[in-house]
């Protein structure tokens, strides 16, 4: 990748945040390999909850899936009693990956290298040739299987999502989310889920640029012009931003305006956001009102690297995994509910055209963060300027022309990183 390859500079001088605070983010944050390494320890292996997947992905005893917490490979399993476990995907013997597939169903976990065999909860069961062969070799007499195991993570399931943390004394997920965030997760995910499809995208930028991008409500209608191009009747006239108590998670929401609905839409409980639009294929925006709070579009981030999108009826989890200081893999997990009718599923399917790697509304996000990465890499000492909506880091209930949640991200980031 010629265009995104960059010299990984070392910065002998210690990192210092500018005196202007979170209205500035030094570009060095996106390119410095030392900061990237510190993030692995302080965030992904520190006091944060990592999104590890969905319970519905491992429904049966013996199911596992693999993922990453930051750059650390992780296995998530369901044991014979139905309990979910997470552990580092690294054999206690020589450190090889134990599970290679994305998903599988197995009676136990076996490392391919020397056949060390583990229970589904990560405890070591047995070691090949422990007693040697024909009286020769073998482990020393004091070898104890109880002293070796796959390194466990603390695990909690919240609304069908599996979270893992390396901090043994981590507070529960609901406390981590806080009282302003947890109820909205329950609104969106608090019922049996169904996966409708997944894919991923490689974006050539530091993971934090995507974390900023998700919180950046300022760019929405400026970069993404699909709705205005097609004169789509915007139902989401008013909206706002809610920050969590630690500022690092957020909800950006838009409410539909009080429009009088055409009788036929009302009767079928279906409204079309594309009424009066210039779309030739208006089936794209067929939608129905799922909740009675009037919110039709929302993005909710959970620090460090995931969000839940609910645009019209398109429900998806986006999980963005760091793959190096200037590379990120963005996963799209499209969801519906078990209770959905065939017609409702179809609407979710068609609306998936709006987002994802080829999303009509938001495909620009696949390259815009790379443009920042490429624009900033030569000047690590310079910083971005983020004063839209003021310099404060507070919820903004009536406007989305603000960078308050981007400042909120940096507020939380500085705290956990000690910057």
């Amino acid at each position: 990748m010629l265009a995104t390859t960059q010299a990984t500079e070392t910065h002998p001088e210690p990192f210092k945040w500018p005196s202007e605070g979170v209205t500035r983010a030094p570009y060095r944050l996106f390119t410095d390999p030392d900061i990237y390494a510190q993030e692995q320890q302080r965030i992904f292996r520190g006091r944060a909850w990592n999104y590890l997947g969905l319970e519905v992905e491992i429904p049966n005893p013996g199911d596992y899936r693999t993922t990453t917490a930051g750059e650390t490979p992780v296995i998530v399993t369901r044991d014979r009693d139905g309990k979910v476990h997470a552990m580092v995907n690294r054999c206690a013997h020589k450190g090889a990956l134990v599970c290679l597939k994305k998903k599988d169903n197995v009676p136990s976990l076996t490392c391919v290298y020397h056949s060390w065999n583990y229970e589904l909860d990560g405890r070591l069961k047995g070691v090949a040739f422990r007693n040697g062969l024909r009286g020769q070799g073998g482990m020393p007499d004091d070898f104890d299987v109880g002293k070796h195991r796959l390194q466990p993570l603390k695990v909690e399931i919240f609304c069908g999502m599996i979270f893992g943390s390396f901090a043994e004394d981590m507070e529960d997920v609901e406390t981590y989310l806080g009282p302003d965030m947890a109820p909205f997760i329950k609104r969106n995910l608090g019922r049996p889920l169904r996966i409708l499809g997944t894919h991923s995208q490689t974006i050539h930028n530091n993971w934090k640029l995507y974390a900023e991008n998700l919180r950046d409500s300022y760019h929405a209608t400026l970069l993404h012009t699909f709705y205005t191009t097609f004169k789509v009747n915007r139902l989401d006239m008013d909206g706002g931003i809610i920050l969590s108590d630690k500022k690092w998670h957020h909800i950006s929401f838009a409410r539909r305006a009080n429009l009088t609905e055409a009788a036929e839409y009302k009767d079928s409980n279906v409204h079309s956001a594309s009424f009066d639009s210039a779309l030739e294929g208006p089936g794209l925006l067929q939608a129905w009102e799922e909740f009675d709070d009037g919110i039709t579009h929302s993005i909710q981030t959970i620090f460090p690297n995931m969000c839940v999108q609910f645009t019209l009826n398109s429900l998806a989890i986006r999980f963005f995994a760091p793959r190096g200081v200037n590379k990120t893999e963005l996963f799209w997990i499209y969801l519906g509910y078990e209770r959905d009718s065939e017609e409702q599923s179809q609407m979710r399917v068609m609306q998936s055209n709006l987002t994802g790697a080829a999303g009509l509304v938001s495909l620009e996000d696949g390259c815009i963060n790379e443009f920042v990465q490429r624009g900033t890499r030569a000047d690590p000492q310079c910083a971005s300027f983020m004063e839209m909506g003021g310099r404060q880091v507070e919820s903004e209930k009536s406007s989305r022309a603000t960078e308050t949640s981007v400042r909120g991200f940096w507020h939380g980031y500085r705290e956990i990183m000690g910057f």
Partner: protein
Amino acid sequence: MRKITPLPLDTPSHEMVTDLIVRYAHALDDGQIDLWPGFFTASALYHITTRENHDQGLPIGIIRCSSRGMMADRVKAFHTANIFEPHCYNHMIGPVVIGPAKSADAVSSRCNFQIVRIMEDGRMDLFASGKYLDEIVLEGGVAKFKERIVILDSRNIDILIVVPL
């Protein structure tokens, strides 16, 4: 009593099928994206998905157009709404195999493809590989896609897709 054999419905010849598949690729490779919807019937399905989704029978992939109108909207968005770094494709299409017909009026075919993507700065990458599963019919004597399912081998897309595959 005279036995009545129903007349076979008119279907495109093998040569017409191959010709359609090749002309489609050449149009996209030559940057003639405006021609793209014209390769399909009015109510055609165009669907890009991944092998992983396809094998599990999951309905959401990466692009799903259920009419030529939706394809025209994609073309319009390409020209006026979407922002991306300019690039073009080069399709390499493998031999076309005609399979058992799924309906009386259509020919079912499959071929493999690889797509090289060339960026403005000269960078060239293998962007996509996979297979086309096609249903091809005759419309006014011209072969058109009634269905084109594009199944990508990889779950992962580099950067984005804005030009159809």
